[in-house]
């Protein structure tokens, strides 16, 4: 890889020198051939033309040398008295000097032009490599892969030359927790150099003004806010000065620095979002515990303390009623606790459902049994279509969902008409419906029926709203969370003829192979 310094001192290829020689030869041939037919001034112009053309291909030093030699040769061959370096006339002396000056200036201008062109081309190549590096980085997410990409880019930019230190560059990345990630190997003092470079966010090594004596460069990976790592680039042997490519190497390093910084910012934002969601969930749960759990607890404590303090003054019937209250409310409290725990579980990331093939009967049966245990007077009519497909669900969660819907209907659905629990196939889903003939859901509540109980958010400014929602609590929010966890959905609408209709849709999945056929008769 040529540096700009090289462009001054060496021809671009060996052929460009030969080409210049050929141009000079042609020029001289022409001048000798036209000697008889043209006067001295015109011949001199040919020489200036030759100098200009030859300067295009050769290095500046060579071109200047060739110019000077040609002017001397011209003096010798054409300027009278010919065959000597003496100049006869004053005007010839002026001609020679002018020739020398013009050829020299043309040569200098030419080489300068070429240098600028080479600079521009080199610059374009560097921007291109920088852009390619940026694109490569964008496609990689893990820091180790990004560091490896940087190593490759540094090597492409600054390849180890023959006889140079063969060690590949090393990269140190440090995350905000202070953990170091190394790519490539670095000797102990090189590692210290990298750490120092990282701490200070400034390049160290030859040409940087700091630690000039080192045999390597330590380049920081800088973002806008901080330094996220450092790269070690070994200095080729025999090269004392800072390479002109140093800014380019630094630009590569800084690019990785910005990418790391952006990624860290994204990570931090995601964490903040998760924390906020966690926080919101915790608040919801705390609110639920504070409100929903206190009501049954207050009843239990009231009844229990009455039994404890007034036992001598209560009739047997009163005692029995108080004890029954305690049993009922404790059951309610247990259910609330189950709901709260389940909602917390579903809200935490990475929750795995315990899904298995389940028949709808296996969901409905336990729900009906539970409802019966809770309140034997409560009438529920279950109607299941025949030949319903098996569902792949978490049976425990689905039972909890249906139990919540039925308990909701028990509390708010009126007691004159039995609550209905229906199951039917609907396209590629199974619909489970719980409907009652109660007063329905107040308009103000309908939109937020399945939202988590957010009493704290609504605040005391809207007490009627809070009071209206207290019955729903977490139960319906849990229903929705369970439905969504199964890729299903739950909705409410007014039932035709009055009442509420909750509908749960669960997707039907492809069944595994049927069990082998059975012989028809046995018993």
């Amino acid at each position, binding site marked *: 890889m040529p540096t700009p310094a090289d462009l001054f001192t060496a021809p671009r290829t060996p052929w460009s020198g030969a080409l210049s020689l050929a141009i000079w030869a042609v020029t001289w041939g022409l001048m000798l051939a036209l000697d008889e037919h043209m006067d001295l001034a015109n011949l001199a112009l040919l020489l200036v033309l030759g100098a200009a053309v030859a300067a295009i291909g050769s290095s500046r030093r060579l071109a200047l040398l060739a110019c000077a030699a040609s002017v001397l040769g011209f003096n010798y061959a054409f300027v009278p008295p010919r065959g000597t370096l003496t100049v006869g006339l004053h005007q010839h002396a002026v001609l020679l000097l002018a020739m020398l000056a013009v050829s020299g200036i043309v040569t200098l201008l030419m080489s300068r032009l070429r240098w600028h062109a080479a600079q521009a081309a080199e610059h374009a190549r560097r921007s291109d490599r920088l852009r390619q590096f940026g694109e490569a980085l964008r496609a990689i997410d893990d820091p180790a892969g990004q560091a490896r990409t940087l190593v490759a880019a540094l090597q492409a930019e600054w390849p180890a030359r023959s006889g140079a230190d063969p060690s590949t560059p090393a990269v140190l990345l440090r995350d905000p927790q202070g953990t170091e990630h190394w790519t490539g190997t670095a000797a102990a003092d090189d590692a210290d150099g990298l750490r120092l470079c990282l701490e200070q966010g400034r390049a160290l090594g030859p040409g940087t003004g700091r630690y000039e004596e080192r045999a390597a460069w330590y380049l920081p990976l800088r973002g806008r806010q901080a330094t996220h790592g450092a790269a070690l680039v070994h200095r080729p042997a025999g090269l004392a000065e800072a390479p002109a490519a140093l800014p380019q190497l630094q630009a590569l390093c800084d690019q990785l620095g910005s990418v790391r910084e952006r990624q860290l910012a994204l990570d931090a934002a995601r964490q903040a979002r998760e924390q906020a969601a966690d926080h919101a969930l915790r608040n919801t749960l705390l609110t639920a515990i504070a409100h929903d759990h206190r009501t049954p607890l207050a009843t239990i404590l009231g009844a229990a303390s009455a039994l404890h303090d007034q036992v001598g003054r209560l009739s047997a019937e009163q005692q029995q009623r108080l004890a029954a209250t305690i049993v009922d409310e404790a059951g309610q409290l247990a259910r609330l606790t189950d709901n709260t725990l389940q909602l917390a579980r579903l809200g935490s990331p990475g929750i795995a459902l315990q899904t298995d093939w389940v028949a709808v009967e*296996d969901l409905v049966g336990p729900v009906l049994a539970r409802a019966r245990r809770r309140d034997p007077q409560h009438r529920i009519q279950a109607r299941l279509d025949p030949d319903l497909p098996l569902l792949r669900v978490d049976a425990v969660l689905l039972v909890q969902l249906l139990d919540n819907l039925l308990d909701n209907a028990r509390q708010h659905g009126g007691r004159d008409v039995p609550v209905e629990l229906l199951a039917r196939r609907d396209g590629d889903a199974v619909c489970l419906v719980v409907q009652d003939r109660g007063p329905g859901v107040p308009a103000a509540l309908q939109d937020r029926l399945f939202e988590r109980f957010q009493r704290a958010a609504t605040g005391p400014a809207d007490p009627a709203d809070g009071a209206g929602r207290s019955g729903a609590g977490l139960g319906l929010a849990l229903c929705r969370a369970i439905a969504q966890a199964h890729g299903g959905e739950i909705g409410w609408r007014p039932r035709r003829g009055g009442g509420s209709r909750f509908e749960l849709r669960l997707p039907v999945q492809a069944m595994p192979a049927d*069990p082998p056929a059975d012989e028809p008769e046995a018993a």
Partner: protein
Amino acid sequence: MSLGVLLVEDDRELRHTLHQALQVEGYRVAAAASLADARALLAHAPAEAGFDLVLLDLGLPDGEGSTLLAELRQHASTPVLVISARMDEGPKVQLLDAGADDYLIKPFSLAELLARMRVALRHRGRAARPATLRLAVAGVSIDLETRRVQRDGQDVHLTPTEYRLLARLVQQAGRVVTHRQLLVDVWGPEYTHHTHYLRLYMAQLRAKLEADPADPRLLITEPGVGYRLADNDA
């Protein structure tokens, strides 16, 4: 002679409450608050007044109740009823497969506990005695000796697989049998993940035996765990 119950529970209040309630019901109760206590009581129990049933809490101060279950199962078939505050189905199933006779999740009512205890005690010593052979519950009578199943006095015809499934549940009537146990015993050990076989055959059995398959009174589902054949006690 009253039946002996070993109660292993570290919560003092619950231990006292259960101790008292079980004594009122006529059981002879010994209470332990830790694994070490329980081991000592088991080791020093006189032969003529041993324990007929163990009520075992899982989270104990000096270890997991499941270790005691494993120790007990090495040389005794004393029924073990696990009582635990943990809701997850996974550990429940593991305990049942490891030899626990039944489980109860806290909080539970005394009536539930007593019903489960009666069932567990009835199966006591089942290794020596033949399993339940005849059963009549919810309008269905099942006789494993004559392989006869009747509903409301009418014979019901079952396929061989349906019959094997029902018979397996009858052997442990009143107690939960895990999906895995049913699949292994009815279909074979390589079918433990074919839960859908179980669902389909259970649906067929219910259609033949239950008055209302949607609200079964005989073949009870234990969500996420297994099935339980209803029993007049439970």
